[in-house]
């Protein structure tokens, strides 16, 4: 496979520009799974891709103003069913060739190509119908319906047509490890890290010379490395380490606006778990207060806690969160036991059995989440064990998570994970029968109906109402045990200056970052 070919040795990397800027080393949650923006499956992917590519339009990290680095001019056309885009002249790809309208239309056509297995592209397919080249720098993007303010919807990254033999783009192409973009940095994924070399362009003048992304391991080692200036930053500072860094004069803790919530997904196609009462019992057996205290270091009643329980698939600050659905902070063993018995489970020798067979729950967790919630997998395993379930626990690598768990091909009974969202916290892909990220192929007609109601809603209020009803339904049917939202904080040494962090995308303003 192309991705498994030999990667460039670190010492042999050529820089896009030689300058007097610094190199920043930072810890990420994991290595990116792909540097191709069509296949941004993880937040690590999204952040890394932001360094390499330009999105057509983006939001300013400070003023939220809609901005562009690559569009010289735009005109709404065809009575609102198209937009004519004139690209800026002289923007170079990392291979030295010049960006043109051909690249823009290629990107659109690749997104529309049904053979491109991209969840990102699928979302754009719903409203983009085509692209027509009208000049070397001019392209007309057409929509399936009238779109007011189309610029706000066009946030995709541009790909170089010359790097692909067709508009059918596979995630396995070498491009995913050695991409060519127009962004401020050229990136190459190596075995243990990703190296980003600055690339001066007509629209990007990064002050930094190089960025080195490393996979963060043990949280304590990450913090010691940061304090000892062996690295300059940590994207996700473990909650337990934040207090120490906050008091440091050498490191600044910085907020990273990202809406993330944690969950235990339940395989409702599996044996006893197919019964809603069993899932409800599991929900009552999990003591969230205890988990939060031991894994995250937040106690019940802590003021302005970074870790807040949720009762459905949204964070509590979302307009979609149904505040009438209470969270379940503590376990209720008696109620859980009653539910399990009503579902036909029997307790034999202190262990639950289903149809005469002992139940062993196979529980997995995304491995890198352990850095944020220490021993969460073991804690949940222990709670299930105390409640009478045998279990096998295992940490899941990023690749396995991506290729098997999210695609619905794992054989776990329960998986612990985290979903992250930007402004749009739509969850249809998670719970719809045809959802593209439906972990255990959960399928429920009433859920599908509400998700369709959301998609087809005419007004904002109708959308909100649909999701409020969804929240109530999912809190009852429990394809997930909903845990909490956890704020994200980054830590950067104070030598790093101008380091404005963009909500969700992180590195949008990287040109202004400097280091002594």
């Amino acid at each position: 496979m192309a991705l498994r070919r030999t990667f460039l040795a670190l010492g042999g990397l050529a820089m896009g520009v030689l300058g007097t800027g610094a190199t920043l080393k930072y810890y990420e949650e994991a290595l990116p799974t792909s540097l191709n923006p069509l296949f941004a499956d993880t937040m690590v992917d999204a952040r890394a891709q932001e360094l390499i590519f330009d999105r057509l339009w983006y939001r300013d990290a400070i003023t939220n103003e809609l901005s562009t680095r690559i569009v010289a001019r735009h005109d709404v056309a065809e009575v609102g069913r198209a937009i004519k885009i004139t690209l800026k002249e002289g923007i170079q790809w990392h291979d030295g060739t010049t960006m043109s309208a051909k690249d823009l239309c290629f990107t659109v056509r690749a997104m529309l190509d049904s053979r491109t297995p991209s969840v990102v592209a699928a979302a754009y397919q719903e409203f983009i119908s085509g692209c027509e080249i009208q000049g070397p720098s001019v392209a007309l993007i057409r929509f399936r319906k009238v779109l007011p303010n189309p610029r706000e919807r066009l946030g995709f990254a541009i790909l170089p047509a010359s790097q692909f033999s067709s508009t059918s783009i596979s995630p396995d192409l070498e491009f995913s490890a050695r991409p060519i973009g127009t962004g401020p940095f050229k990136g190459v994924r190596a075995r243990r890290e990703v190296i980003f070399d600055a690339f001066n362009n007509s629209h990007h003048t990064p002050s930094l010379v190089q960025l080195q992304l490393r996979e963060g391991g043990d949280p304590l080692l990450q913090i010691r490395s940061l304090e000892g200036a062996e690295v300059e930053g940590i994207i996700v500072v473990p909650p337990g380490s934040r207090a120490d860094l906050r008091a440091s004069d050498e490191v600044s803790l910085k907020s990273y606006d990202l809406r993330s919530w944690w969950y235990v997904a339940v395989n409702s196609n599996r044996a006893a778990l197919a019964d809603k009462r069993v899932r409800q019992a599991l929900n009552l057996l999990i003591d969230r207060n205890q988990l939060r205290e031991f894994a995250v270091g937040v106690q019940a009643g802590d003021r302005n806690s970074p870790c807040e329980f949720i009762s459905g698939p949204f964070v509590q600050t979302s307009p979609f969160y149904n505040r009438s659905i209470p969270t379940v902070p503590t376990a209720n063993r008696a109620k859980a036991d009653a539910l399990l018995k009503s579902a036909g489970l029997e307790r034999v020798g202190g262990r639950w059995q289903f149809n005469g067979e002992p139940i062993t729950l196979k529980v997995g967790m995304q491995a890198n989440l352990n850095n944020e919630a220490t021993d969460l997998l073991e804690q949940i395993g222990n709670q299930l064990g105390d409640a009478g379930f045998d279990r096998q626990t295992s940490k899941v690598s990023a690749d396995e998570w991506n290729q098997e768990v999210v695609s619905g091909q794992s054989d776990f009974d329960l998986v612990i994970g985290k979903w992250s969202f930007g402004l749009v916290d739509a969850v249809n892909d998670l719970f719809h029968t045809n959802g593209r990220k439906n972990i255990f192929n959960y399928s429920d007609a009433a859920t599908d109906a509400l998700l369709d109601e959301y998609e087809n809603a005419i007004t904002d209020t109708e959308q909100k109402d649909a999701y409020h009803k969804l929240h109530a339904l999912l809190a009852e049917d429990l394809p997930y045990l909903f845990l909490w939202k956890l704020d994200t904080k980054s830590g950067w040494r104070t030598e790093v200056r101008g380091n404005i962090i963009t909500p969700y995308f992180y590195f949008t303003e990287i040109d202004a970052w400097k280091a002594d």
Partner: protein
Amino acid sequence: MRFALLVRHVTVLGVVGALAGCAEDESKLPTKTVRGTASVSSNLLAQTWPVRMANDEARAAFEGKGGWRQLFIRDYAQSLSEFSRSGNRVGQARVHMELAAVYRQGAVLAANATHHVYGDDRTETDPVELQYLVGVSRAIRGDAEAALAAFADVPSGASVTARSAAWSTWLSDNPSWPPALEWLDGMSGAMGPVTVGGMPNTPSLPHFEFTERSKQRAMVKANDPTVLLALSEWHLAAARAADAEVMSILPLLMSPWRLPSEPAPVGADDAPAQISDAWLFARTLLCSEDVLFMAAVEADGGAAISQWSDRSPLAAAIAPAWDGDRLDYQKVLDQSVLVMKQAQAAMVETSGTEAGYHRPFAMFVRLGVLQAGMVVADKAGQYRDAGILRLEALERMEGGKGSIQRDPAFAMSVAAWDAGNRSVLRPEDILHNLLPDYPALTVARPPLEALHLRLNRRAPPSTPVH
């Protein structure tokens, strides 16, 4: 209870020691990790309340005293209760003023969100009655003409028709802001008599439910931002009742929190020579001169810096960042750290030893520099740079070890600023975190959520990622 916290970084002492006693001597400037220009003399620093209160006697009136401790950690309800118990009228006035600031900024948040979602982004399915809220919002935002236009769109016979008429009449009479408390009280529902140490009644929410003009006729819950104005004015009235001496300085003290529709306060001429520590403690305006300096900035912009840099520590602090036309925000960031360390060094010199409260006290100095720079940048038309300083100041109010709790009024002002930029995630977080202590701020939730929903439909598509 002392403000004692453990000092953590022994290495800082070396830097601090180098600064102590001779801030002007560049040869003793700290290591490369602390940049900036030592522009604040030790005399100016000595004027600031954090440095003065490194003296045990100066601090005694506040340290461990019921009311002031709670105010420091921004527990205003408990603070007010303690001040009431001890009969501290100035303390009560101070808390009422802080509460007034919170609700005033809440009104701005509601107004900005409403203006965008039901004003600029109005859709044909929106209930037409929402134009009443658009009118109130535009009035708060200082656009009386647009407000009157919105009120004119409210149909007769609607639940808000009488309110629209009342607001229209008030605006048309060209009054000065704000509306009188009696008038606001009449519009908002009886809040009860102004009681020093008490809290106003708040009407139950939502105030209204309107029907969308769509096939489904979904119901839209809405609240009147007038209530938040009323709450603010109620608390200001309570502050005045608690301490009559505050009358002369209240406009200056409330200036950072004034509505867009309110004019800047008059300058230094009418202000008392000395503002007491009861009004400065736990604020980022560090001495009387800083208060007057900021009033001068409102009037004259950055030109005030050179006029005040020999008297106001904040003016001196940001002077190196001002070239006469523009503010260099990076220099303000650097100065904020340097001056904070200078203040810490000065506190060590004053108290004779390191103490746990030094860092949190000095944090107010850092925040003061950031916020002063923010205001100057805003006045200079450097909107984005002001935003950078604004967000940095918010970031530094992190709470926890070595830091200070968030100032809720400042947090609300950032939320309002964000909403003005059509940005919703941070204001939603800010509002959510404040609601347990200030439930009346729930008034601002519906328009913010409505704005989020509307932006949600216009944003680039995205799917959850792990």
